[in-house]
């Protein structure tokens, strides 16, 4: 009895579909589009939003000075809801709409799916290839077993970060008992495994006194972990946690009055400084490719202005992803070298092995596995820093700069090239 509604809905659906997928014509002076595939809704929306603002800001600044080959850069935001399979769809959508570049960073699981999707698309649609620029997914597998000709990583992979960290730690006399707290997924598993190996090999004065995994985003009260840390007598904590899982951990450690140094990957962003505040001073360390007071220490005035302008525009957050700057400028250099933004194979070849003068020094995109090699900084929360992070009242002060040679790990990548 409900034939009428059915046909009506189907016509409606058909009209809607045609609206949603109308083909987009493009010409030489059309903007160069980059799909930004990140969570823009749901529990991780703040993380995606932070990255989006970085890319939009960078694109705008670059457009002011002529864009790429005289064409504007346009960032197309796509919401992947932090889901790998959704991201696969969005890579497909980007290819359909003629977008040649996709960028993503949050979640190595999403990163792995993106590599699969890009590889699959480039194999099946040879005349419509896509390039994946990864600005934050740090699973070493992405540039080792899973490495791809169409994937470039601009952040330091977690094995590189641990390498740099252990090179720093081996000179620290007061690091004797190390405790590991990590999230229960591949990222955390890797840190736990690799850190244990590194301590055995390089740090004769130190031992691992505890190694726990906790589920992602489900622990609300970290005090039981704190009691275990306290019982183990640890003086140093290494954690790959991020977001709330890190904030809660640091807050629990501080409110219990534990005297311990915390080394993290992500202490400087994703809401942690605001959530931790002064409690993290002198305790919370991070290892990154850059932090805001590097500009001050090294007199990088131009880059400091860049930082300040970003802050003016988005008062609630800070310029955090230095690698977005590197990534966008290197993409520009590669496209201009090739002379067009359509020949993906040529652009990928131009990016391979490219050396770039970043404000922090020369950085290199290793040709063998497409992993960026760059100097790293170990910094600690510091109320005396010139710039505070996320308006928390505390910023970051450099503890050590790790030169490129000490922040490099060999790769097992065996790349399939076109």
């Amino acid at each position: 009895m409900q034939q009428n509604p059915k046909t009506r809905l189907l016509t409606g659906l058909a009209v809607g579909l045609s609206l949603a997928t109308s083909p987009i014509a493009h010409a030489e002076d059309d903007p160069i589009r980059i799909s930004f595939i990140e969570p823009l809704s749901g529990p991780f929306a703040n993380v995606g939003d932070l990255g989006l603002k970085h890319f939009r800001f960078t694109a705008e600044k670059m457009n002011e000075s002529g864009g790429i080959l005289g064409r504007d850069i346009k960032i197309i935001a796509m919401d992947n809801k932090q889901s790998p399979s959704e991201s696969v769809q969005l890579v497909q959508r980007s290819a359909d709409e003629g977008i040649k570049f996709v960028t993503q960073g949050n979640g190595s699981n999403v990163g792995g799916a993106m590599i699969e999707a890009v590889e699959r698309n480039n194999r099946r649609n040879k005349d419509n290839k896509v390039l994946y620029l990864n600005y934050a997914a740090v699973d070493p597998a992405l540039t080792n077993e899973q490495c791809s000709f169409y994937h470039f990583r601009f952040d330091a992979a977690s094995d590189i970060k641990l390498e740099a960290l252990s090179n720093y730690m081996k000179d620290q006399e007061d690091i004797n008992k190390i405790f590991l707290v990590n999230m229960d997924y591949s990222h955390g598993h890797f840190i736990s495994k690799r850190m244990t190996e590194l301590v055995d090999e390089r740090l004769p004065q130190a031992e691992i006194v505890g190694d726990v995994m906790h589920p992602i985003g489900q622990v609300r009260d970290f005090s039981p972990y704190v009691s275990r840390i306290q019982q183990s007598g640890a003086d140093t904590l290494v954690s790959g946690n991020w977001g709330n899982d890190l904030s809660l951990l640091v807050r629990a450690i501080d409110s219990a009055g534990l005297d311990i140094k915390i080394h993290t990957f992500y202490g400087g962003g994703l809401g942690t400084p605001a959530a931790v505040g002064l409690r993290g001073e002198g305790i919370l360390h991070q290892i990154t490719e850059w932090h805001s007071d590097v500009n001050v220490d090294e007199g990088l005035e131009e880059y400091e202005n860049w930082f300040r302008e970003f802050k003016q525009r988005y008062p609630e957050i800070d310029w955090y992803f230095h690698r977005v700057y590197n990534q966008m400028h290197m993409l520009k250099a590669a496209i201009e070298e090739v002379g067009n933004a359509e020949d993906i194979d040529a652009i990928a070849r131009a990016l391979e092995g490219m050396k770039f003068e970043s404000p922090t020094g020369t950085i290199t995109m290793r040709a063998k596995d497409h992993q960026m090699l760059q100097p790293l900084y170990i910094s600690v929360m510091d109320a005396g820093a010139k710039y505070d992070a996320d308006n928390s009242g505390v910023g970051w002060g450099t503890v050590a700069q790790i030169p490129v040679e000490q922040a490099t790990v060999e790769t097992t990548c065996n790349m399939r090239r076109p």
Partner: protein
Amino acid sequence: MLETIAYSIFNGVLYGTLLFMMSSGLTLIFGMMGVLNFAHASFYMLGAYFAYTLGLTTGFWLALILAPIAVGAMGALVERYGLRRVHQYGHVPELLFTFGLAYVIEELVALFWGTVPIPYKAPAVMNTTAFTMFDLDYSWFKVFILLVAVAMFVGLWLLLMKTRAGQVIQAALSRPDMVGALGHNVPLVFTLVFAFGCALAGLGGVVGGIQFVTDPGMAFMMGPIVFVVVVLGGLGSVPGALVASLIIGILQTFFLSINFSLAETIGTFNIENSGFFGVLWHMEATRIAPVLPFLLLVLTLIFRPRGIFGKREA
């Protein structure tokens, strides 16, 4: 071991009291109206956000009182203009209504306050150390949480047992039709109970938002665990909610505090850490802890669907 037990009990009780603040309202609402309020954790979240915003002008102590009242008022509006309309269609649509409401509230919170965690903190006085146990400091704020929870339980008990309003609620819990027949305005009682339950969740949020993190994801994280507490304690039973909150709080904390896996305790017997049983054999207690509540939920429902103190089956 003694230390571990002492920690587990203290921290567990602390966590349990926070759970109780949320679940008491939920269980009251269910007992009364038969509605499992999926949006209950959303009201908890609203409590934290309201307290933060109000606290900017009125200070924390006034916000501690005003925020739950504001959340309660929102609850009353939701009941009066939303739930009551859906009530005529039965319990499933009622449940679905609160299910949709949870999505909407989360989006609205993200719209007005942003998706980044807000810097909602306790007044400086409460961050000082109250006492030290086995070398770990406990702040006044943790003591304060305990006090609020105790005050709440005593207040609830007095309200339900000693006042006329409480007697009406008690009666309506078991025989709503009779209460209506006796001339009480049952719809009004429903609205009040719903508002009151939401206000309790809001109070939980005022405290919990400080203890944990205040961001739009907090409701989604807290949601299912509250259901576990309510089912375990027995739907509609306030003392049950208290006992279940404490059980879950202590049990979970204990599992997190100990270093235990079958392989470590009994021996590996050359069982490899792969395959279903191998992984289970090597699984550490800390990794099991978060699923423990759901295991309890399923087991309770299979073997004792009425929960610990429930008078009737759900």
